[in-house]
């Protein structure tokens, strides 16, 4: 029952928000409560997983391997907790924006649906189920971008839609071919037969299709050109939600598929491919961020670069590498919405010369932005630094000195870009600024960002426990023991 909760809670909340759409404030409150309940269930699930191993749920009571199974292993549980934290912060920060009639309630409903898709994708133990949840979250994200009344907004939506649709088609094709090879859709079953199927001529193209599809959705090289368009245009909580959730689910997809299909023979071909994609994404994203002009674009492209770094950790295919990748992913999931939300408490997105209400009310957002930027840039002793250190150690272990240079270059680029944003846009804000839309500084949004930053600081302090847990998660993933046993012969 427990693994189904993270899917059921947002789904019910989405339905209720639609029913209550005449009352947008109630809908927002409902959304907030649902996010809190989701966080509670995710933490409880994490507790269970840490205590008694992988949790499974066979939907409908069918027997394995025919059942559609929801599996929560350590990686899924960690990502669920991070996603629900982000969701709570975003639903809280929505309270500052004006509530225009029914649109605000429908927006909440769509956000909960997107959240449902995200959580379910983390829990899916069946490759087709994974595809379906990806579609759910994709279409929900389209609909969240759709209310843009102007041409530029719709253009951004079109620019977001087409590459992601192509990614979906590739994902479905990969799923079909996977079924053709293995005769089953069940990830545990596939993992069990992965070594025997290593000689199948169609295995490499299938793996390539699946990884390409997820890489496209995760905005890695050479598919990251769609990312700045929607992130630059969306309203502030939506952009933060996209940044924190969508690309991370795709990276989770890459991790899952690579490690399920992994066999030494396949790994020989996959590893250079993954290393190449990851390194080029890291360098390309950071380079593009250096040359971008608007704050939102810079932050989005930095996000792309950091996803490249996480993929770099994965491509090492060792326990240290995957553990570093997971840690970095968790850190990114918290720091990116903090940056987006803090910067939007500060600027008006469409026109960056308009600053927030008064100088004194900008002090706290400025401080929060600075703290989050320091954490992201990898300043010791915060979690960004720890993540990059773990990645460097993992590369050192395999004597990949070139990759260490790539990581260092990406880190320096990040530091430079964030410093430029700070100097150009944040520090030099004029004392008397124009009022932005007459809204006062939303307190809940400030609280949300403060909590995110505080959590990041806590993560830095508790880094040893967290990395111990991610190390266990990585070992579990690499051995796939938990997945095969629990999912096929589960509780």
């Amino acid at each position: 029952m427990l693994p189904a909760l993270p899917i059921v809670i947002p789904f019910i909340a989405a339905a209720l928000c639609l029913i209550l759409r005449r009352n947008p404030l109630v809908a927002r409150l409902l959304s907030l409560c649902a996010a809190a309940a989701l966080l509670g269930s995710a933490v409880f699930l994490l507790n269970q997983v840490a205590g008694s191993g992988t949790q499974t749920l066979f939907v409908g009571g069918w027997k394995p391997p025919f059942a559609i199974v929801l599996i929560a292993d350590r990686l899924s549980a960690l990502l669920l907790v991070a996603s629900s934290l982000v969701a709570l912060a975003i639903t809280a920060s929505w309270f500052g924006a004006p509530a225009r009639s029914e649109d605000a309630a429908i927006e909440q409903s769509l956000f909960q649906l997107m959240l449902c898709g995200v959580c379910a994708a983390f829990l899916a133990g069946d490759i087709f189920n994974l595809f379906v949840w990806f579609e759910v979250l994709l279409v929900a994200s389209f609909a969240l971008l759709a209310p843009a009344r102007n041409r530029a907004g719709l253009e951004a939506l079109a620019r977001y839609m087409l590459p992601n649709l192509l990614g979906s088609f590739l994902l479905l094709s990969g799923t079909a071919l996977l079924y053709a090879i293995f005769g089953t859709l069940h990830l545990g079953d596939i993992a069990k037969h992965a070594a025997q199927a290593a000689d199948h001529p169609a295995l490499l193209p299938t793996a390539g299709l699946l990884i390409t599809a997820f890489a496209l959705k995760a905005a890695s090289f050479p598919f990251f050109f769609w990312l700045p368009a929607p992130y630059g245009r969306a309203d502030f909580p939506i952009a933060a939600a996209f940044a924190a959730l969508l690309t991370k689910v795709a990276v989770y997809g890459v991790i899952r598929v690579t490690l399920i299909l992994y066999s030494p023979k396949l790994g020989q071909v996959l590893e250079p491919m993954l290393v190449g994609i990851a390194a080029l994404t890291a360098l390309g994203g950071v380079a593009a961020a250096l040359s971008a002009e608007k704050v939102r674009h810079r932050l989005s492209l930095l996000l792309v670069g950091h996803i490249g770094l996480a993929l770099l950790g994965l491509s090492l295919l060792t326990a240290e590498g995957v553990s570093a990748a997971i840690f970095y992913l968790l850190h990114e999931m918290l720091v990116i919405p903090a940056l987006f939300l803090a910067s939007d408490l500060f600027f008006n997105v469409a026109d960056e010369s308009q600053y927030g209400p008064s100088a004194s009310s900008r002090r706290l957002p400025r401080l929060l932005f600075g703290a989050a930027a320091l954490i992201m840039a990898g300043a010791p002793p915060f979690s960004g630094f720890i993540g990059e250190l773990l990645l460097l150690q993992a590369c050192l272990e395999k004597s990949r000195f070139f990759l260490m240079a790539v990581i260092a270059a990406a880190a320096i680029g990040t530091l430079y870009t964030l410093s430029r944003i700070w100097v150009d846009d944040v520090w030099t804000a004029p004392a008397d600024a124009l009022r932005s839309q007459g809204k006062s500084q939303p307190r809940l949004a400030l609280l949300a960002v403060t909590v995110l930053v505080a959590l990041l600081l806590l993560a830095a302090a508790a880094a040893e426990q967290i990395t111990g847990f991610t190390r266990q998660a990585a070992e579990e993933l690499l051995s796939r023991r938990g997945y095969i046993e629990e999912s096929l012969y589960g509780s």
Partner: protein
Amino acid sequence: MNYLAPLLVGWLFAAGIYLLTRRNLLRHLLGIALLTHATNLLVFTAGGLTRGQAPIMPGVGKLPPEPYADPLPQALLLTAIVIGFGITAFAVTLVYRLWKLAGTADADALTAGQ
């Protein structure tokens, strides 16, 4: 060995991607539609094509006589068709709205103002 179905899938993919590279947004729509069909046909083909019986059990606990069609890809296909339909409907609305706002369906003209 059946060559027709895979060739058809490949041809549909090629046509769909070709249309996605055209200037007119309406061609993009058609490209998406063709890609949906291509992917769905691939799901169907990948499950194995048999000129056999329908996969319906004649009685409790009895299997239909071999060879029977594999029901699982057909179930996947149904889901995929519905998903594709929803996406195409959304894309049509988007293109229409964009055309109304911008007065043109030319992709180059639309991005010129970036």
